């Protein structure tokens, strides 16, 4: 018999964070993410970590960034309205290159919307919500076990690439309890610290991988951090050439690690005439739909991104190369579908199945959406 536990998605997120070495959490209560904060409030003190409930989501991410520069692995979690407030500091964390993890448990919006109902309406907000040109890393787990795994992964990416990483899942996954088997310990790569003496240290001088080393405040390196466009000394500049170099490097460090960051999972795509593209809870419905369709001899497969940003465009192009139809199912009125269309580039017909009423897409709806094309998928 398996040594299994029934764990809620939000609890798995908190467990993953603690396992990854998170020792600082700042947050503001909001449905449906509050269980993450509650778990952290109970357990971080046992790990000699700090939990603080801030006055809003803006200050929550501000405190997380401050703690990060003081050397802590730090995170916050929120949902739609709070995620809107955090956009200011997501941009700051990109610019100042502050490692941090932000969890957005998506609920139905816009605005206050349906607080206790799921959606996938924040996909583009996670990519483009903060102003200015910036890269983004956003991970999309589809099970309670994967929430644990990808929260751990988010810390590793944040610490090694010196940037904010977003874990994006919906209310259903946040509140669903599933059988999980969790590793007692996990080891992840951390941030790189400088090898030069403090007098030689240039805080924004990157190595070949585009990532500058980061000492903690108090470790003897007295350096300046700013959200203003800055030079390699970390000091503000108005020189266009230096500004361009900085912004390009912030993007290039993600692009350089792109193949390591981007992960997709496929199910029976090799011979598929129809490929379903879905993430999060919708991928679970799609998997069941694929199994039903296959049981009827229909060539249907599933392509599921574990990383939604950077968008897995090369993987989508390759995996759908032999398909005639790609069905994008998402709990919004069509956000990711345009990225899929861009990646498929006319090589297959791209259809959308969208739902934005606060209810999850189920396997039956996907099968119905496939019905017109199933004839072609028959062997």
């Amino acid at each position, binding site marked *: 018999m398996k040594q299994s536990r029934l764990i809620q998605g939000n609890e798995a997120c908190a467990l993953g964070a603690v396992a990854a070495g998170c020792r600082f959490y700042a947050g503001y209560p909001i449905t449906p993410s509050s269980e993450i904060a509650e778990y952290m409030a109970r357990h971080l003190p046992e790990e000699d970590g700090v939990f603080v409930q801030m006055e809003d989501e803006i200050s929550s991410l*501000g*405190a997380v960034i401050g*703690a*990060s*520069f003081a050397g802590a692995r730090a995170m916050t979690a929120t949902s739609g309205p709070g995620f809107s407030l955090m956009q200011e*500091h997501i941009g700051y964390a990109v610019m100042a290159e502050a490692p941090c993890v932000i969890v957005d448990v998506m609920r139905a919006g816009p605005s206050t919307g349906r607080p206790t109902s799921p959606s996938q309406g924040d996909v583009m907000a996670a990519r483009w919500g903060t102003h200015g040109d910036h890269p983004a890393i956003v991970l999309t787990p589809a099970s309670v076990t994967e929430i644990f795994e990808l929260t751990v992964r988010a810390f590793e990416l944040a610490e090694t690439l010196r940037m904010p990483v977003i874990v994006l899942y919906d209310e259903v996954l946040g509140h669903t309890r599933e059988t999980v088997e969790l590793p007692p310990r996990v080891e992840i790569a951390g941030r790189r610290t400088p090898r030069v003496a403090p007098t030689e240290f240039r805080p924004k001088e990157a190595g070949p991988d585009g990532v500058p080393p980061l000492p903690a405040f108090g470790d003897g390196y007295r350096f*300046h951090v700013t959200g203003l466009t800055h030079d390699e000394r970390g000091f503000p500049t108005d020189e266009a050439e230096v500004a361009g170099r900085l912004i390009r490097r912030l993007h290039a460090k993600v692009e350089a690690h792109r193949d390591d960051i981007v992960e997709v999972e496929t199910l029976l795509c090799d011979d598929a005439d129809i490929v379903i593209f879905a993430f999060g809870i919708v991928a679970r419905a799609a998997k069941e739909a694929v199994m039903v369709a296959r049981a009827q001899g229909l060539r249907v497969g599933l392509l599921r991104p574990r990383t939604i940003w950077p968008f897995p465009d090369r993987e989508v192009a390759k995996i759908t190369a032999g398909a005639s139809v790609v069905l994008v199912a998402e709990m919004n009125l069509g956000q990711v579908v345009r990225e899929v269309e861009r990646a498929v580039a006319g090589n297959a017909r791209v259809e959308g199945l969208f739902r934005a009423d606060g209810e999850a897409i189920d396997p039956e709806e996907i099968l119905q959406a496939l019905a017109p094309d199933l004839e072609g998928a028959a062997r």
Partner: protein
Amino acid sequence: MTIVDIRPHLREWAMPHVLCAGCAHGIVGRAFLVATDRAGIDPDRMVVVAGIGCSSRLVGYLDFCTLHATHGRAPAFATGVKLARPELTVAVFSGDGDGLAIGGNHLIHAARRNIDLTVVLFNNEIYGMTGGQVAPTTQRGAIASTTPRGNTEPAFDSVALMIGAGASFVARASASEPFTLERIFTEALTHRGFAFVEVLSDCPTYFGRYNRLGDGPEMLAWLTRQDSRVAEPLAAKRVVDHLPIPEAPPGLDLGVLHREERPVFTGRRSG
């Protein structure tokens, strides 16, 4: 008292600085550096967090760990730094618009928690960096680029606000009295808990020019004189004669105005 050479605490490589001639913020910054030295703070363990604005740009020239954060949010960033690494001495430089308008909520909650920070609020009664717009501290009647006919709103009393919010050390000082500033900063930095110091500073470029208060030296003299500052000098210069002069203009109290011992928030099981 010995003279403190502040040059070792400056990032001279980052000069020239961005502040205007006649701006008194430099006097405040100097007094702060003297105080860190007198308080015996190891510069490697000193962190100064700032928001956005003229006062906040000052931190770039201080040779500590300096975190130039976002507009009004410096107390939140400083909270994270201090909670994550309690052995650091953490201070915040903020302006009057930064700390009392966009960042008012963060300021009052940091004070309420009584977290061990020293917050210096530079009050020059105007938004300098964005070009002279009215601030929550601009006195009634004063001219700003967004109050061309005179400010009709009352000004914030930050000292009363901070005492009400729970700050355990609250002081007000003037850039025109640098030795008093040094003493108050030293006390604030060694106070355990949330210490707040409002510093009356000047902005000759905007506030002084719009209100005909003269250049840096004249404004410093005006700051020194004003135990009853509100509206009187402005009215005397008749720039706002269409506005009623408040009866008995209240003076601003200077000095350490509130001090108490209160439990300090550390976010940890053992304080």
